[in-house]
């Protein structure tokens, strides 16, 4: 008898616990970026869709078929309550150096050359550094030539930072050619700001 009673009690407890779990809501919060700007997120399910475009604006979700709830702005305390741990584990924002070259060559400008020691210093103080050296070009000339020149420039930068002490194992060299501009332009346009090598420590 006692065993059956215990089982019944357990069943009731489990049912209540399950109901409790179902009643819990999903939460999606838009946060300002590190530079303070606020992006935009669209939350969609079978019931409808809502737009978040203000700092700490949030929507709650109950099921896949019930529309996301009307957005409201949360205070910092309630964001912290749910997300303190997740936010504490967020890795440090990657840090980038933009280097420029003498026109048509793989020689760094004097100004960019002076920045190389800063790259080493950043790698040295970074915990678990990965270093991406990525060549970029503008859209004047053929895309194949732009890819090749920007890759050669990236390889040159790799050699220079290895020379001053950045461990080669940490470095990945690639080229994005014309396809990752700072300033988007039409094809064939010369844009010196897009001709660069970006060294990112992450």
């Amino acid at each position: 008898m006692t065993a059956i009673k215990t089982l019944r009690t357990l069943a009731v407890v489990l049912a209540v616990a399950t109901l409790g779990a179902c009643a819990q809501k999903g939460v999606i919060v838009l946060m300002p970026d590190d530079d303070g700007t606020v992006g935009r997120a669209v939350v969609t399910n079978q019931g409808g869709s809502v737009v978040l475009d203000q700092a700490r604006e949030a929507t709650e979700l109950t099921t896949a078929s019930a529309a996301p709830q009307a957005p409201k702005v949360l205070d910092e305390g309630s964001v912290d309550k749910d997300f303190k741990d997740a936010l504490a584990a967020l890795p440090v924002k990657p840090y980038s150096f933009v280097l420029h070259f003498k026109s048509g060559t793989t020689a760094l400008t004097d100004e960019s050359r002076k920045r190389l020691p800063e790259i080493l210093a950043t790698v040295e103080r970074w915990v678990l550094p990965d270093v991406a050296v990525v060549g970029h070009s503008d859209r004047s000339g053929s895309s194949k030539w732009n890819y090749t020149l920007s890759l050669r420039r990236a390889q040159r930068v790799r050699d220079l930072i290895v020379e001053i002490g950045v461990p080669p194992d940490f470095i990945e060299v690639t080229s994005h050619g014309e396809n990752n501009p700072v300033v988007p332009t039409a094809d064939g346009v010369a844009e010196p700001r897009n001709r660069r090598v970006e060294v990112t420590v992450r």
Partner: protein
Amino acid sequence: MPHPAPFRRPAAVLALAAGLAVTQVPWSSPAAASDGTVKSVSGTAHILRGAERIPAQAGMPVQASDLIETGADGKLGITFKDNTRMSFGPNSRFALEEYAFDPKEQNLSLTGKIAYGTMSFVSGQIGKLAPDKVKLDTPMGSIGLRGTKILVKVPKGS
């Protein structure tokens, strides 16, 4: 030339301490070649890859199709090669479904699904170059992002 302490990769150091050949460590290849790297971990956290359930350690690579799981005391953070960052609080489960960052071939995508738990997400260059290719799913709805930082909580059992 000896390097200062922060240069050392814990994975390799731990492998040596455990008497393992470094080549046996699944993440002994340079992390720079992988899609992402575990940058922070505390408590219990695992990467599920195929049939393997690998205890997560800082420095481990993360790749498309991996599942990330944290225990009751677990936290974990990842930085991807396009600078996207994501992190998870305790009792979380996330599937990295697709990851591609190859601007030269204009091959860009990042999709994943959080089954339960808490996560923070900061979009990177994929979000800048191809915002429509970044998607986070939950069991109750999906999130489209325009270059931004977002927090997601999904209760277990939903």
